[in-house]
């Protein structure tokens, strides 16, 4: 009996011994897969890639609304839903902005002012985009995680005010860095750490924002622009604030338009209105922007339209099985193919869009056609000139509208040409380039008044900004230019703001109770700068 009692005590003491090692045994909830501390040089590129990656849906959707392309039939007919732009909204906030905030916090703590500056500039750019697209957005209480799970939406005007301050802060932060680089080159995909490039981007962004608010605050816009035009703006194509995709397929670094269209299944139709605009104006960029898979298939699979098989905006009919026949994205900006096949019905009077020197034919595109290393132009050298031209025509800025118009077109043409040459396409001959610029400048000079000149400026900016639907969507709402083609069967009025993400409306209790009302008025409520 005693023996047995001992055994029991032994058992109990075993329990106790076990108990003392319990804490170690159970303390295993630290994620072995991921890091918990931040390295600035790894976090910055993440914000740049995710901003570009998350832009695809927004860019394609707004490009559809302003007839650059046709991404979805319902958006082409101006009907939005809560999932039309949710990927971009969700991604900007949950990937890009949270990383930018972390970057600002950590780099400020470490007094790495170069990172602080770049993070703040990216934040300012992205938030200005959010306001332009959606109007009122979460800003002050956004990206706080646990501290605020339901950020409040604040007015776009208030956000813009804070962005001007933020940009100035960033410029000051960059000023604290004495070197010519803000960070090691590999950490910055966009400018390789160049301080000069980022300062030019900062000023160009300010220029853009001042111009955007010109309808509601002309004095501020004028003063702001005047203070910038003699300063450090983006002034070369190599200084473009542009995201450059890569050609790697695995991991896939390619431009989403290339990925989407250079395969069997296709999502897009090329916009017949853009195609015709270029075709009818003898514009050499047509061969760069649009690639034909079939030289005879025309509009809606007919044999019309000179062999450019696109769709008219607002066409609600179902798509036939035409993936091997429709025209698709060309070499610029998607990194596809340069269309070097003869084009039907080119007028003999054409000087720039001609069949001279064409070689080869059309082809059904596949994944190995083109490099896929396309670009996402955000603020380009050309855009800066066009903004200055617009401001000069509409405000009393100290700027020469005509020169800026010419510089803008030239910058864009050479940018397209250089990009194409670097990606297996053909550069624009310099007679074509200068000749076409000359033609446009004569059109400019022939324009009877500032309104006509502005139409030319905005039309050229519209063409030059192909690949960035957001900028053009904002321009169109401010200027109602260029003239867009009437829709075949619209389902709604032209949207003045975009629909919010369904996920945000459901999950954010500060708006979830009025989600439906909030959503439906987006279509008809102008953004604060829109009058």
């Amino acid at each position, binding site marked *: 009996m005693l023996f*047995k009692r001992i055994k029991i005590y032994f058992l109990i003491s075993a329990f106790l011994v076990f108990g003392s090692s319990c804490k170690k045994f159970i303390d295993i909830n630290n994620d072995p897969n991921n890091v918990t501390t931040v390295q600035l040089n790894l976090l910055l590129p993440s914000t740049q890639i995710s901003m570009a*990656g*998350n832009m695809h849906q927004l860019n394609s959707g707004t490009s559809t609304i302003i007839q650059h392309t046709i991404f979805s039939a319902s958006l082409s007919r101006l009907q939005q839903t809560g999932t039309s732009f949710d990927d971009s909204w969700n991604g900007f906030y949950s990937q890009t902005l*949270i990383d930018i905030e972390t970057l600002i916090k950590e780099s400020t703590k470490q007094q790495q002012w170069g990172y602080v500056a770049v993070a703040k500039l990216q934040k300012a750019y992205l938030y200005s985009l959010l306001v332009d697209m959606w109007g009122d957005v979460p800003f002050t209480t956004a990206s706080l995680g646990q501290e605020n799970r339901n950020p409040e939406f604040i007015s776009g005007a208030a956000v813009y005010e804070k962005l001007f301050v933020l940009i100035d802060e960033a410029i000051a932060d960059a000023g604290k860095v004495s070197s010519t680089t803000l960070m090691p080159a590999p950490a910055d995909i966009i400018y390789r750490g160049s301080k000069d490039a980022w300062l030019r981007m900062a000023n160009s962004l300010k220029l853009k924002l001042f111009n955007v608010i010109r309808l509601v605050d002309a004095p501020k816009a004028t003063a702001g622009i005047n203070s910038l035009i003699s300063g450090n703006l983006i002034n070369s194509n190599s200084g473009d604030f542009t995201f450059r995709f890569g050609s790697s397929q695995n991991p896939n670094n390619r431009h989403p338009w290339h990925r989407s269209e250079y395969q069997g299944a296709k999502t897009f139709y090329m916009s017949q209105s853009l195609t015709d605009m270029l075709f009818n104006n003898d514009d050499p960029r047509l061969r760069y922007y649009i690639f034909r898979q079939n030289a005879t298939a025309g509009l809606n699979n007919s044999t019309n339209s000179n062999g450019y098989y696109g769709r008219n905006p607002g066409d609600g009919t179902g798509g036939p099985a035409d993936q091997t026949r429709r025209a698709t994205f060309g070499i610029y900006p998607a990194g596809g193919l340069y269309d070097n096949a003869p084009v039907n019905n080119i007028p003999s009077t054409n000087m720039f869009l001609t069949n001279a020197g064409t070689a080869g034919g059309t082809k059904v595109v596949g994944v190995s056609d083109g490099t896929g290393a396309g670009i996402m132009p955000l603020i380009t050298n050309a855009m800066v000139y066009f903004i200055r031209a617009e401001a000069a025509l509409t405000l009393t800025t100290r700027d020469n509208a005509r020169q800026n118009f010419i510089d803008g077109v030239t910058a864009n043409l050479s940018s397209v040409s250089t990009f194409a040459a670097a990606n297996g396409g053909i550069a624009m001959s310099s007679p074509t380039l200068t000749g076409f610029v000359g033609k446009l400048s004569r059109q400019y000079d022939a324009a009877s008044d500032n309104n006509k000149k502005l139409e030319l400026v905005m039309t050229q900016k519209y063409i030059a900004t192909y690949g960035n639907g957001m900028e053009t969507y904002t321009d169109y709402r401010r200027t109602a230019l260029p003239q867009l083609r009437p829709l075949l069967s619209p389902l709604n009025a032209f949207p003045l703001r975009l629909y919010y993400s369904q996920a945000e409306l459901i*999950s954010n209790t500060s708006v979830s109770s009025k989600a439906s009302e909030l959503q439906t008025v987006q279509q008809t409520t102008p953004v604060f700068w829109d009058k």
Partner: protein
Amino acid sequence: MKQILLFAVFSLFTFFKGNSQGRIVSGQVTSQQDGSFIPGVSITVKGLSKGTTTDRQGTYKIPVTDDAGVLVFSNIGYGMLEVPVSGRSVIDVKLAESSATLNNVIVTAAGIRRQKNKLGYAVSTIDAGQIAQKSEPDPIRSLSGKVAGVNIQGSGGIAGGGTNITIRGNSSLGNNNQPLFVVDGVPFDNSSFANAGTTTVGGGGVTNRAFDIDPNNIQSMTVLKGAAAAALYGSRAANGAIIITTKSGKKQSRKGTEITYSTSYAFEDVSGLPEYQTKYGQGTNNDYRHGVYASWGQPFPGVQSMLPTRETIPHQLTRQFSAAVFPQFYEADGITPIQIPYRSYAKENVRNFFRRGNVYENAISISSGNEKGNFTAGISRTSNEGVVPENSINRTSINIGGNIKLENKFYASGAINYVITDQKSPPIGGNSGSIMSALMYTPTSFDLTNNPYENPLDGSNVYDYTGLDNPYWSVKHSPSISNVDRYYGNFVLGYDPLPWLNIQNTAGFNAYTDRRLNVRGKGSSSYPNGSITSDDIYRQELDNTLLVTASSSINDDLSLRAIIGNNINQRLTNRKVFYGDNIIVAGLNSINNTSSITPVQLQNNRNILKQRFYAFFGDVTLEYKSFLTLNVVGRNDISSTLPANNRSYLYGGVNGSFIFTQALNMARNVLSFGKIRAGYTKVGNEATPYQTLNVFPINNTLGASGVAAVGTPFTPAGGTGTNIITQADLLANANLKPEFITELELGTELQFLNGRIGLDFTYYNKKSTSQIFEVSAAPSSGYATQILNLGKATNQGIEIGLNLSPVKSNSGGFNWDISANFTRNRNLINDLGGYKSFSYGGTNGTSSIHIVGQPYGLILGTAYARDEVGNVLIDPNTGKPLTSGALQPIGNPNPDFMLGLSNSFSYRGISLNVLFDWKQGGSLFSSTIGNMMSRGVTRDTELREFVIVPPGVLGDINTLKPLLDARGNKIPNNVAMAYEDHFFAGGMGPGGVNEGSVLDATVLRLREISLAYELPKSFLKSTPFGSASLSLSGRNLWYNAPNFPKYVNFDPEVSSLGVGNSQGYDNLAVPTTRRFGVNLRFSF
């Protein structure tokens, strides 16, 4: 806590000390039928109320004072036996099973054996005969319709497809709701890992790992439905538990040697295909069109119609393939396509694609034993070739087990199992490589059967649908392969130091590797380069349970059993996924046959998951005069998944039963047995690992999904590769607390007319509080999902089991037994901590959503815009319905009730069993039906040469309010549209707005028929066999889903998302199958 346990241990020991007295009679009680030991037999000295019960080896010791006394042996389910002591000190007895059997001893939590009639909660036991040899290789599906309270949802006709099982509804808002599987005392992982990376198999095609249990090796299955039953398993049994005892793991010894061989063969066919229309061919707008995947084209020659017809069409494949590829489809000039007859292939296209599958099972098991111990071993092989070509699953399992009673009061047992499960699946799941993407709506005039599917030049896909692969091509070139090696077993060591004390330790392991390969074939039209994803999943679970059991009589009327225990558990998942891009040589399925390989990150890069817990528990049962039982259970868990200050949590419950027929000594001629039971239990539940800390994954894919997903490291044009880190999408919660489920259960068991009628009724009310769940976060907070720790949901329901024996005769006469079970569960989301709703899961633009005041997991999607009285608003421009501004709940996937009805007839050696079940209600969002309707392929849309004006009122497209006429009245829809447009995208029919594809999934089903013949012993005398039986079985022989379109013949028992909390989705699932089998069983 530890102090309390210690105190409890000491008090128990002092309590029992010195309780024996007088002369001791001992012995062993065995079954007269099979010689197995019978534990729990009550033994009393006649005339005294003093008594004892047999232990797990069937042995007992009882003090007697009088050599002339008589011992009374009784046990529910067995006859009563009186044995005079006559001066003996060892009395072994054999008890015969009584006919009015009440399923006596069952295994409850932690291997504790209890008499069913004394339990304070509902359990259901299924024995081998109800599971094995039913032409069903999936042990979970074999439970369908057999147990009240259990909802089983298969995912369609893929061999080895996932099976979702829930007991008493979904309790956890976000965590696992599958019950815990326990095999021979050790938890058995039933995970279903979705494919990672570029997936070609949707959730429905992925096997859940309970499939690794061979039904042939199951001795019995006990379903512990409620929290009360499962309290001792803690956290993981909060959703109920399914306790499986395998043949090798069974504890009771059996004398003699038995060899059993069983074999069965079944063939399977698709259980239902639509009735296709055969009057109109490919095209739209009554016009023949190449390449269009709709059948709204011209009528075929000979069809009575007002539309023009045509005799021939150019060969369809000439649309995309030149004469260089298919010269035979061109005239001699190599340019002009040949003309082929314009006719319908609708009757054979889909039917010919599916093949006749089969299930072939062979199992041999031996068992041999004596009083001291026994040994069992078995090997079995099941192969199931599915109805989809190339789809198969094979399972080979080997098990060895044994137990032994040692001289020195020790006993030991052990079992080890090794299972190899190999599955090969076609790509399913609705994406572009899926075989089901277009199969069910192949254009009626396209000859899918005879047209080539491989490009003769390079083997690439040939189809008339750009961007989609021909299903014949997919099954050949894009397989998904899973090879599972699973090993599990246990070692039990027990010690009986004192007659009233037992100490037992069970150490168990359960691990598997699942090596998967998902191939997207080279030449696929979705991705011509092809790709191979390799996915190695290692999962390991270690578990140790120590039990100290003390049992004895306190006085003549009162006996007590107390158990204290300790449980330690570790679970580990380690997964390595690699994506290989660009297959170099077609047809060789190895990741080294790709030109570049990159690692694939899982959600938040959670490739390794490790969690542990340890727990102390106690279980005290007091029994008064064997009619009143009170059971108190307590458990304290310490889980690694919770933050340090919240990781220890205590819970428990109390339950009791009262056999009033016995207590009140009621006359037994009408009500022969009556019991009421009640229980109230709280169970805690832990979190999943790593939800308490925000992290930064390295080289995550950035950007949105699909073409916008940018892989990293990122190499810009002309630049060098850049590595990145990014904050994980998941907003962690540093203050996680355990979630709790509290359940009240009330029930009664009644038997009338000496067991001819039996009724078991249960009511339960289950509340889940402070739920831990991952839901969508407001993206502007910086995260895509967040871990919340709030909310309340309830499940209330009733379960009724009814057994009838309308005809009963003894020994080989005609017997008829009816067994019915009814389940009705109502769940309700009561509170989401201030939030109105949370969405998760879903497919095809829909998601599942929890909404306060609504049932669990509704289907959220686009709905018709309606006026205040429910009229659909119609767009005056198009005649099509307007879509509501925000997404809305459009369906409730939870069934209203379920009914299973089983009729068994037996006469001499022949028995017939017919199982019928009925699932009422529950919505299904069916993209299969939506597509078939909008593509005009079934007879439902055959009558079509007219225009219709759909019901509704005209609405304003911007305000979504009804338009009013001059007098302020609503304007009934007056816009006519072609019948085709009514169904086509955006139309009123299924295929348009999501709401139109939501259907009531009520289904009646003849689940199972088996006809068995036991060969008479006399017949076998001259053979080596001891017994032999032959049976025929059929599964899913008939079903009717009355609320589906008439001609789609669709079986709603599909679930495209497979196992999980997002249910009610059919995203082009593979249709279910019907099986006929023949089974043979011999024992030597």
